[in-house]
């Protein structure tokens, strides 16, 4: 595939990975390359749109006029949240299933067919965004009816989702065959995580097709009327459901990367799997938090769906927040890689961009994305957040600072382990995750300040010159300036990533490294601690999670204080 890999397969199409000991089959690996490279190309294009959008909202530059802003923001959304994320996630399914199980990809032709349908649908959607004319309007990500988005847009979106379903079938078929052959064997944790991800993805995709198909029929005039509240409810099954796919795929990547690069082990199979099962039952209903300030659903409905459902998922996330660093701590302690409270962290391979991207992703996602997600998911607090830039800040903390950074870390290892290429750039590659993560974290923070403290609305090209009034948001200008500078830095960090990846693919030297953490050698020295994982001290992780919990409580209290200052609303 692409002729860029340095690896050879045996006669059966398998090869053994020198780092992970995994037996990898060509049928799966070809598709991982195809979906992975498509994702990274999309990231590069989406990054260009990011620059245009950020430089418009920084009104000192004020790059685009309003019409262009609406159009380019829609394109930015599609290339990032749909192409970059979803193509990468299909690749992750193929890694988590066939790679980890050492199997061929069953029904692999469906993988190719799914790719084709996704690509066609996606291109149709972005083409219609790029060329729509009045009376059509920019769809953004939501294409809320009855605002008229172009009809081909809806068709393209439906096809894209159908393609993703088709591409998921080979993954399920692979798991099915594994279980038929080894009915009593437990799936490895990574495969289990990928499996839960895929089930949640199917629910989300089914919801999306249910919402967007009638929207298409309405737009071409086949259906006369579509209830806007119904559409919102159905849309968010995919709209937020796809973010749950990002979340689960990211967590699976966290388990994978901390193990491969950092030598992490599983602290407790039972607890980690229990957390995945909690997601399976609860997380999709968490999408209800998009309707917290809606008239279309009752207060009881809103309370119920952001209570039992969301908190089942919140517990699951908090479990992973402990289990993953604890696995790293215990694994490294066992290998003699660190004593004291945080020795296991100080001794970690921070210069390895695969490692640093993963750890930064965990920290920034938790503090910035996770906490804020719970806050806006509380019915009353949602009034403060709804449709302001704070929402944009939240999802730039989750999808961008969290998931994108994790996927970048994974990509560095796809370069090594799938394409057999060392990455170029040396120090630049080591710095890249810090530059990107740090800047993006700052972007997210500024957006949240702008939204919560100044009420700056999202989806506005400019807020310093609302026509026909002397009212504006100029008090927020300093925050916009910091936002803009950080955004430029983040885009530089993203561009650096793309350059390193593309450069390494074309000109990287062959990768021939062994395990990153050579635990056999360590064990031979007798430096490691032979006790089982669960008997290792997890006091470093416990300290870190207590700090996290403290931040959670403080931010939660502050947001309620902010809300309590508002005038009396409701009975």
């Amino acid at each position, binding site marked *: 595939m692409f002729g860029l890999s340095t690896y050879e397969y045996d006669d059966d199409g398998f090869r053994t990975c020198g780092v992970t000991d995994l037996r990898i089959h060509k049928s799966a690996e070809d598709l991982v390359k195809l979906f992975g490279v498509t994702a990274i190309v999309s990231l590069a294009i989406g990054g260009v749109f990011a620059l245009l959008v950020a430089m418009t909202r920084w009104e000192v530059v004020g790059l685009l006029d309003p019409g262009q802003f609406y159009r380019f923001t829609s394109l930015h959304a599609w290339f990032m949240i749909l192409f970059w994320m979803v193509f990468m996630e299909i690749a992750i399914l193929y890694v988590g299933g066939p790679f980890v199980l050492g199997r061929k990809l069953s029904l692999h032709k469906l993988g190719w067919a799914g790719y084709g349908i996704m690509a066609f649908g996606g291109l149709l959607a972005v083409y219609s965004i790029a060329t729509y004319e009045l009376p059509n309007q920019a769809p953004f990500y939501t294409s809320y009816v009855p605002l008229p988005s172009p009809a081909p847009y809806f068709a393209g979106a439906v096809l894209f989702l159908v393609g993703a379903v088709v591409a998921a079938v080979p993954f399920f078929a692979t798991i099915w065959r594994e279980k038929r052959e080894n009915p009593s064997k437990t799936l490895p944790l990574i495969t289990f995580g990928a499996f839960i991800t895929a089930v949640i993805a199917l629910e989300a995709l089914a919801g999306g097709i249910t919402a967007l198909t009638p929207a298409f029929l309405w737009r071409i005039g086949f259906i006369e009327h579509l209830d*806007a509240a119904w559409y919102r409810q159905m849309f968010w099954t995919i709209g937020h459901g796809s973010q749950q796919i990002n979340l689960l795929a990211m967590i699976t990547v966290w388990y994978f990367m901390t193990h491969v690069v950092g030598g992490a082990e599983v602290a407790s199979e039972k607890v980690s799997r229990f957390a995945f099962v909690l997601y399976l039952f609860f997380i999709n209903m968490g999408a209800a938090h998009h309707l917290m300030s809606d*008239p279309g659903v009752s207060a009881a409905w809103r309370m119920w769906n952001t209570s039992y459902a969301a908190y089942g998922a919140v517990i699951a996330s908090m479990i992973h927040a402990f289990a993953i660093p604890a696995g790293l701590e215990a694994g490294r302690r066992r290998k003699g890689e660190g004593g004291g409270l945080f020795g296991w962290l100080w001794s970690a391979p921070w210069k390895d961009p695969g490692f640093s991207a993963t750890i930064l992703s965990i920290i920034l996602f938790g503090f910035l994305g996770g906490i804020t997600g719970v806050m806006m998911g509380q019915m009353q607090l949602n009034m403060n957040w709804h449709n302001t830039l704070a929402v944009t800040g939240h999802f730039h903390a989750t999808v961008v600072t969290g998931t994108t950074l994790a996927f970048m870390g994974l990509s560095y290892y796809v370069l090594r382990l799938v394409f057999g290429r060392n990455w170029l750039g040396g120090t630049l590659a080591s710095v890249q995750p810090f530059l990107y993560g740090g800047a993006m974290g700052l972007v997210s923070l500024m957006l949240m300040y702008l939204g919560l403290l100044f009420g700056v609305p999202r989806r506005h090209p400019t807020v310093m010159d609302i026509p026909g009034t002397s009212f504006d948001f100029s008090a927020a200008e300093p925050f916009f300036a910091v936002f803009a500078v950080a955004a430029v830095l983040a885009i530089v960090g993203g561009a650096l990533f793309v350059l390193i990846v593309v450069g390494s693919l074309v000109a990287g030297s062959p990768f021939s490294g062994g395990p990153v953490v050579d635990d056999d050698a360590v064990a031979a020295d007798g430096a490691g601690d032979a006790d089982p994982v669960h008997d290792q001290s997890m006091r470093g992780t416990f300290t870190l999670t207590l700090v996290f919990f403290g931040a959670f409580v403080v931010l939660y209290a502050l947001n309620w204080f902010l809300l309590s200052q508002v005038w009396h609303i409701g009975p």
Partner: protein
Amino acid sequence: MADDEHSPLESPEGDWWNQTVNRRESIWLGISGAWAVTLFSWMLGWTQFGDQNQTGQTYKISTERFQEKVQAYKDAAGTLEVGGEEYLVPDGNDVFVGSRQWAWDGLPVVLKPGETYKFHLGSYDVQHGFGVRPEGNLSKQISLQIIPGYEWVVEMSFDETGTYHVVCNEFCGVGHRTMHGTFLVQDHDHVETGADQSSDDADQPTGDYGGWFTGDARGAETPNYDGSATDATDQSEVTVDVGSDTENGPYGYGPAALEVSPGTTVHFEWASDGHNVLVESQPDGADWQGVESLESEGYSESVTFEEAGVYKYYCEPHLGMGMKGVVEVV
């Protein structure tokens, strides 16, 4: 790899379900569970002891019917002039806010501090967002979704006096950013309200065209309307530029208002791109179709007006810039 390594890439061996869980991990599980219960309880509790709950009755209602209700409310409302601007004074404690592309109907309104009002929020066309904040404190802000087909009644009362700004924060089309309204919280003397006082409308000054050029009607205020029509009653042919310059850019009809005699031919000539001419209203018996398609510079269309009366028209994409016009046949 060490033999007893617990790798996430391998099937766990033995009785993994019954393996001991680290004590600190168990404690963390307890903290997480307790925190989840706390979050839930606080949210439920706030509906009882908190002052900010976006709950209220929702009614299914057609957009047309909701528009009628807002109109009836406006007819019954009194008016109060504050600082040169005219505010509605609600008749009772129900306040109707109608959202449309791209203006707030029913605003501006003046409300008394401490009084509890029922806000009726609804839309005439697409989804909008009711984002509100007092002028002096931007961090005291809330946002409520407005969905066409639904009327949401949410109670509010205000202690802090002053101007509150309403911006639309759900994307609603090209004019979205122009959609702004205000209400004023302040004590005032008694103002006559009720259905009969709407007869005052008969006294409205000539040249107002029922408020067509103000922000109360569809779209924004028309910037290039100076309060009187261009008199062309002595000409048999007149030209109106479509997309002529205004202070907001090339979004005006020049002239905005035109008086002609019966039988006059008006040439609509496009001076910039992307405009149309949609007829809002015309006298009984008239049959002007307007120009529905969006046309570019150089296009022109001629119409001969016979029927006496007021013809109101507007440009669909640029209503938010107040691109509205009138031809009156006298």
